[in-house]
């Protein structure tokens, strides 16, 4: 299970804080160039898992391999491959951006001759080119967050782990940060934690959902949507037909009357009754004025998954 492409492989990670289990049996895989969204409500164990993946916290059980290197057995070798932005950006507020990034590069063993170049590149990627000489304490929160990301990527690690990188940013900065993360995905594997679902949709290739310390879902975004294909088709009609008229159409599994001539049609997996509905609506003069795919939003899926688990 340690192919050359596997940059992060965490097996059955658990973390116990006295009586409270913050993370239980979480297994996680990441391939080169993949962006994994780590999703869950606050307190689900996302940050704890990320701290374990980066060697900041020792797991109670389980193992972590970074690019095939065991994080417990050879922490120093494994950590050269990781860039980590914790929940609170770790910044030395007295230093200038340049000084701080130089320090980050040196500590991450960037060759002395290449430090300047690495710092310039990280600044350019994070939009900090103009702010190199400013003292970090004087920067706005958004810029401080960028410095936090810059220190995580200055040594061009194979694995970048970002804990809620867009928290506290304005919409423009969020968009820029997402672009940056997507760009990072070209050269490195990225794990990104968030509780903002559109962010996952916009950026990630795969998603892992955590709830109460458990991984409740892991798969591609399309998988996630398929899993809950409860969406169906929504139609709005001027002349309301009988319920059975719609339910009788081929491929239709069920019809919900939402009132005011609006129906939600659940279809059987794999079949698409759109054409049949359209034909029937014209034939019977139902006065169809809207037909839209009522795709389950990630939010719905998310709340269903997590609530199910809570009920179980």
């Amino acid at each position, binding site marked *: 299970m340690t192919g050359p492409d596997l940059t992060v492989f965490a097996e059955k990670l658990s*973390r116990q*804080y006295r009586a409270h289990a913050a993370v239980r049996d979480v297994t996680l895989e990441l391939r080169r160039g993949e962006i994994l969204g780590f999703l869950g409500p606050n307190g689900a164990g996302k940050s*704890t898992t990320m*701290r374990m993946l*980066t*060697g*900041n*916290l*020792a797991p109670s059980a389980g193992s972590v391999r970074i690019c095939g290197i065991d994080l417990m057995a050879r*922490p*120093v*070798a494994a*950590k*050269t491959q*990781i860039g*980590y932005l*914790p929940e*609170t950006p*770790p*910044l*030395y*507020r*007295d*230093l200038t951006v340049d*000084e701080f990034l130089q*320090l*980050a590069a*040196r*500590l*991450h*063993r960037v060759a002395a001759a290449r430090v300047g170049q690495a710092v310039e590149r990280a600044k350019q990627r994070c939009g900090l080119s103009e702010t190199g000489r400013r003292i970090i304490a004087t920067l706005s929160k958004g810029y401080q967050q960028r410095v936090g990301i810059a*220190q995580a990527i200055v040594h061009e690690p194979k694995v970048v782990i970002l804990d809620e990188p867009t928290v506290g940013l304005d919409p423009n900065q969020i968009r820029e940060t997402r672009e940056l993360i997507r760009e990072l995905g070209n050269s490195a594997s990225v794990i990104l934690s968030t509780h903002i679902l559109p962010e996952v949709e916009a950026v990630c290739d795969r998603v892992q959902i955590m709830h109460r310390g458990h991984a409740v879902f892991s798969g591609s975004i399309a998988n996630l949507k398929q899993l809950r294909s409860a969406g169906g088709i929504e139609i709005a009609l001027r002349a309301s037909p009988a319920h059975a008229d719609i339910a009788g159409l081929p491929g239709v599994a069920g019809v919900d009357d939402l009132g005011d001539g609006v129906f939600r049609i659940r279809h059987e997996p794999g079949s698409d009754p759109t054409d049949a509905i359209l034909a029937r609506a014209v034939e019977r003069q139902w006065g169809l004025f809207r037909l839209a795919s009522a795709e389950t939003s990630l939010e719905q899926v998310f709340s269903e998954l997590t609530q199910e688990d809570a009920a179980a």
Partner: protein
Amino acid sequence: MLALAAKELRALFVAPLGWVVLALLQLILAWLFLARLDVFLQIQPQLSHLPNAPGATEIIVMPLFASAAGVLLMTVPLLTMRSIAEELRQHTMAFLLSSPLSMTAIVLGKFLGLMAFLLIVVALAGAMSLTLFAGGTIDAGLLLANLLGLVLLSASFVAAGIYISCLTAQPVVAAIGALALLVGLALIDFSVTDPQSPLHVFSLLRHFGNFNKGVLDTADIAFCLLFVIVFLVLAIRRLHGERLRG
């Protein structure tokens, strides 16, 4: 590790703390130095009649270094208080823990950075003493013993201070804790009246006293080195424990 040490030294000088401490220490030591120089010049005529009279080194340098030891005991806790506690408080510890540095390298980096600063202080005291060469001769052996003693004493103070700084996320608490520990060790000499008591072994200032008199005893050197090692190992273990407990 050296990059971290350089950062520690820098951190003292980007904030006013380093400069202020350096300036005040130098002011105090220069004052003591000049006061002793005055004394020496006053009693010099009488001394010249005595056989085997104490020289400038005994009358000026010895008390200067003895006072320097006392002053460092008070100031080193102020320098070490931030070393780990501030990292914990500002959440920057994660930056160090996720960089490819072993826990040992982190603690040693901190230690070396602070020692570099204290070497400047000791060097300035030494440089002041060397100016006595301008007007006479000094006992170089005695001066070297004092310099070595002060370096070892500073190292012991720094190691203890770093350990105390691991125990809390509040730098001020760390300063008070370290000060209490160091003063406590110094008070052994005053409170334990029996000169044969084994407790005296733990008095750092008593060990320094031997260096101060120009006595180079391996037992004193070994004690200081052990003291440093014990507290640095304790600090490393403490940080490992922190990682386990979370």
